[in-house]
């Protein structure tokens, strides 16, 4: 058992099948490469593909001892903007300094520090559309690296082979991470 | 004593005669072989449920009355009716 440490808490909001769970795990692997600790918690229920799903991640300089859900985020990552209509954002954000990173082609006003990146277009451009689903998690992870600095761009890219099977897909996703990193914008 | 040894002593059983008791006392009828009729075919030995009939080297048969329960299968299967079931006398 150890004592409490400063933790950055993430909520990843998306629809079932969008890769929110994997995104949280990539974040943790990247944190490890940066010499940090972390934890990726999926939220499982009866929901199937398409339902609103939350995943959580904690990144810290010390081992994470908490196992409860992340109720309120330091960083809210939104994989598809239309889920914002289905939740009360104030319920999910820790405080006024909390950050939101949304997959959107246009700026979004939320009353919080909000960033946007057109992850859908990036995945389309790279052909990262698998079984009809756009891979939006990797461009968003690039954006997370840029905006928060909690994990590094290189570590995210270096973590991809652990999660992506084929080599060409690793390359394309790495490109997606970079494009997300470069194209994320403030409100 | 080690746990493993103690367990072996109580948890495990080893083969022994009379594990179900001295079952010869269950008997009401006693199989008696009429050796003059016996053809030494071994059929009684083959079907005896209790393994109390020995089919000796010379193919004669020998009944172990300590454990024979007196079921009478041997008499029933004997092709030449060389085994009689005789009522045990009350001693």
């Amino acid at each position, binding site marked *: 058992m150890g004592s409490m440490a400063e933790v950055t808490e993430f909520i990843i909001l998306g629809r079932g099948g969008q890769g929110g769970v994997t995104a949280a795990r990539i974040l943790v692997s990247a944190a490890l490469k940066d010499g940090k600790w972390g934890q990726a918690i999926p939220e499982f229920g009866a929901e199937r593909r398409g339902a609103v799903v939350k995943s959580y991640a904690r990144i810290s300089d010390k081992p994470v001892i908490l196992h409860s859900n992340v109720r309120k985020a330091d960083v809210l990552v939104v994989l598809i903007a239309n889920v914002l209509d289905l939740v009360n954002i104030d319920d999910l954000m820790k405080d006024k300094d909390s950050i939101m990173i949304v997959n959107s082609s246009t700026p979004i006003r939320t009353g919080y520090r909000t960033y946007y990146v057109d992850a859908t277009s990036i995945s389309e451009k790279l052909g990262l559309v698998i079984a009809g689903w756009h891979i939006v998690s990797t461009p968003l992870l690039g954006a997370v690296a840029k905006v928060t600095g909690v994990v590094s761009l290189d570590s995210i890219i270096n973590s991809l082979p652990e999660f992506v099977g084929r080599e060409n897909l690793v390359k394309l996703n790495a490109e997606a991470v970079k494009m997300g990193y470069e194209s994320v914008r403030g409100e | 004593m080690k746990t493993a040894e103690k367990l072996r002593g*109580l948890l495990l*059983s080893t083969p*022994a*005669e009379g594990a179900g008791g001295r079952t010869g006392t269950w008997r009401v009828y006693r199989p008696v072989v009429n050796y003059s009729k016996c053809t030494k075919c071994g059929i009684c030995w083959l079907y005896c449920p*209790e393994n109390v009939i020995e089919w000796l*080297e010379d*193919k004669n048969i020998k009944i172990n009355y300590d454990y024979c329960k007196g079921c009478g299968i041997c008499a029933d299967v004997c092709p030449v009716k060389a085994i009689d079931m005789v009522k045990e006398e009350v001693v």
Partner: protein
Amino acid sequence: MMSMVTITELHKYGRTKFIMPGTAACPGCPLQVGMRQLAMALDGKFVMVIPAGCSSVIPGSAPYTAYTVPVLHVPFASSPAVASGLVRAVRQRNNNGPVVVWAGDGATADIGFATLSGAAYRNEDILYVMADNEAYMNTGIQASGTTSWMAWTTTSPKGKTEDKKDVALIMLMHKVPYVATASIAYPMDFIDKVRRAMQVRGFRFIHLHSPCPPGWKMDDSYTIKAARLAVETGAWILWEYNQGRLTISPPSIPYKDKPRRRPLEEYIKIQGRFSHLKPEDIKLMEEKIDRQWDLILKLTEIFK
């Protein structure tokens, strides 16, 4: 095909105690007759996994046992699964000896049916002998899936209303390499079958008919007589399926012809469990037997 066993060959076991005398079995117990035959077939070198049933009680009291091979007594429904694990372990250690499940009809046809089916479809390297005395005899004669139609038991006081579950045919449809029926009255046939089964790897099933004097309400000495009459009246058909081929076994061959079968009454009348049967019941029973013969003979045509 290997030569058939003869009683002359078995003379070498004339003084071998495959079951130690002085067991807790009822007088005239068919299970001990069958188990001795099994042991002769396997030269006494095998292990048994035994679920709850008469055979858990028969060996007598711990720390002693009448059984002379290594035995694992296990819960009622578990024996095929336990044997599956056991056989994997012993094979990993390069021991190719037989792992035998010795189970009654309740453990096989009823409570353990799922584990039986699972082990069979996985084709586990097990010999499964179902010693069928046609009821839960150990708990005091309650009807099981293989109790005969119209047979009295304590849970079918007016006679069982359902037909006997045909476990051997169900096992055949699991596409295992070896399935046979056998009878304790035909030791040479049973021993041959065990030995032939041992030539095959995978799941092998033998349904061994085992008349029980107390359970069938008959004289202790009638065990073999009843088993033999079951075959001679055609009520119990001895057959063997070995890797694609299904044949009627030699003791049953004459009874393919109905006229050569003994009258069914001879089998019925020695059993108290059928004492309530009316002539029309016996006639119906005979029709069921005829239909079973038709089915088995058709199967011999299919599995030629």
